[in-house]
């Protein structure tokens, strides 16, 4: 669906079901340079099982208007504005990679609005490889090729997509190239590189939090995810074996199963 946030049109997938304000809201926040489509194998389940879902295209990404936001802090504020714009007082947040920094900062800034956090392939800081950052800021498609290489584990490189007929690396690459690289990936990578508040924010988080980490993640190594999770009071960790950074697609079923268990436990649908 399309709606406006601060006067700028935003696109969000509602998971194939109409957006219903009576249902609890889960917001999915994508990683650097990507779009709402990375979430297709998680969002539709929740949309068909009693939740309202918004898999956002961040400003300047995918089908959303406006320009990419330049800092993680601005993105965190924007998520809060999204919750207001759709008429909710609270939501659960699910993030991947850069999206983890965004939702962590959002929960730190707006603790009363955010009910649970799920961090997939997250870390307290994501310093960028200088070469990758430079390529992305210079609009070089090689940045996407390198990202696709490093972001995928065996399923991405060999194949075996959960959706028959889809090929991971080329699909991911096409998503990342759907808008001008320097205006999406370049700005996002710089925002990640500049963000320094993750560990401080983590210590202040008091809501149920789940970290889903992959043991083959080269972009946000598992030890970094664990370091972050250890700082969050009561945080839970789930490890996905034989999988890379794009766990939400590479092992979509396993990720959905642990996310489902977490959401249904800590953000259940209220019975009338």
């Amino acid at each position: 669906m399309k709606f406006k946030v601060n006067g700028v049109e935003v696109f969000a997938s509602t998971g194939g079901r109409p957006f219903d304000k009576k249902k609890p809201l889960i917001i999915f926040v994508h990683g650097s340079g990507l779009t709402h489509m990375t979430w297709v194998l998680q969002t539709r389940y929740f949309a068909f099982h009693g939740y309202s879902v918004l898999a956002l295209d961040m400003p300047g990404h995918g089908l959303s208007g406006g320009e990419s936001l330049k800092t993680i802090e601005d993105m965190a504020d924007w998520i809060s504005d999204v919750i207001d714009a759709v008429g909710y007082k609270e939501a659960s947040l699910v993030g991947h990679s850069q999206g983890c920094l965004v939702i962590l900062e959002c929960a730190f800034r707006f603790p009363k609005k955010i009910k649970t956090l799920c961090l997939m392939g997250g870390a307290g800081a994501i310093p960028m490889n200088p070469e990758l950052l430079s390529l992305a800021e210079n609009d070089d498609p090689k940045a996407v090729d390198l990202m696709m290489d490093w972001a995928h584990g065996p399923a991405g490189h060999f194949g075996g997509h959960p959706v028959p007929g889809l090929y991971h690396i080329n699909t991911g690459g096409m998503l990342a190239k759907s808008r001008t690289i320097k205006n999406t990936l370049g700005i996002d990578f710089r925002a990640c590189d500049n963000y320094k508040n993750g560990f401080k924010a983590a210590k202040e988080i008091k809501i149920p939090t789940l970290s889903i980490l992959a043991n083959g993640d080269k972009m946000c190594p598992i030890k970094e995810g664990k370091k972050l999770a250890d700082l969050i009071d009561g945080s839970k960790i789930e490890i996905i074996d034989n999988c890379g950074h794009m766990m939400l697609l590479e092992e979509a079923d396993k990720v959905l199963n642990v996310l489902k268990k977490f959401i249904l436990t800590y953000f259940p649908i209220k019975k009338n």
Partner: protein
Amino acid sequence: MTDKKKKGTDPKTYKFDTLSLHAGYQPHKNAGSRQVPIYQTTSYLFDDVDHAAALFNLERGGHIYSRISNPTVAVLEERVAALEGGTAALATSSGMSAIFLTIMTLCEAGDHLVVSSQLYGGTVNLFRLTLPKFGVKCTFVKPRDTEGFKKAIQKNTKGIFGELVGNPGNEIMNMPEIAKIAHDAGVPLIIDATYQTPYLCKPIDHGADIVVHSLTKWMAGHGSSMAGILVEGGKFDWMQNDKFPTMTKPYEGYHGLSFAEEFGPTAFTMKARAEGMRDFGPCLSPQNAWNVLQGIETLSVRMQKHCSNAEKMVEYLLSHESVAWVSHPSVPDHPDHDLAKKLLPHGKGSMIAFGIKGGKEAGEAFINNVKLASHLANVGDTRTLVIHPASSTHSQMDEATLKFAGLSQDMIRLSVGIEDFDDIRNDFETGFRAARRPRLVSNQ
């Protein structure tokens, strides 16, 4: 600074030959089986009611019924998508069903297509006679008439279709320029690249949006199995205009799903599968998918031999007294020779058309007397194949249509195999001797 530092880091994603052997398959998820298993089954167990509903609602990936998808077929689909540089692929029972499914996914009654005139005869009949019965009309344009493609675009045009190298005359479409014409008109370019395989050309890299193949030919390569596939490039923006409402608007058949919004770079394949395979059902058997996978494992080595034998054959035919003309993109005076060098850098393919002196009668004598070359209606076998198109593959065309399609009565279509070239040449000598005989008799 070392060269390595200057160059920087390169991605370590797998390359063509490796993908030909491995893409789409992980043994550890299949009982450690090194070879792709043949899932000879119609259907798949659901864990519970919730799991069943999730699969039907496209909440999860997975298999329901082998008409829609099958694990062995899915390996083939991923492998071809990987080799073509595509986002997704959908395998079908034949190349013709891949084309039909592509058009049915793209078009509705009242729509129009611009189509290259030089196509396999069956494809010509699909566009000329069958699709109009479904309300889809076509305008044919000669493949070299790039400007003609632009002029033929109408308000209701939904795509441009052509064979990159036309069957059987070897005329080449200027794919990059025709892609621009299509994209300026807000419609996709669909390329049948059966003759090339991704080893010789990846049309997506040159602007094509959807690639179709008869996998029966060089991809499978051994003349054993029928199969087809459509591959999606993932670059085409279905939401840029209002031409494709079935891609962009809520679809009643899937709870109001918008394929373009939900699946983006794989939307076309998702729709073709969810709607087309469900409603038309031209599914590929797992056994045939496996046979094609066997062929793809050796695609690059076979294509190299096909192309080197074809080059030797071109040289032989060009100097032969019984040959009136030779059409192959490797010939320097072929009108598309320069374009072929650009689009087909790894080889110009193994399809040769030539005219035999003495016309139809000589052609028939040639074909009736070759022994090693097989006379049959196929191309892209490991074995050398010959046919006289005017009396076989294109026989349902009248004289005017034949001429428009670039065919002549003296034309012999040759698919060069990977036998020892000397043996093919000796066989052809026998055929040419027989072809000369009737004329000698009639001249006395």
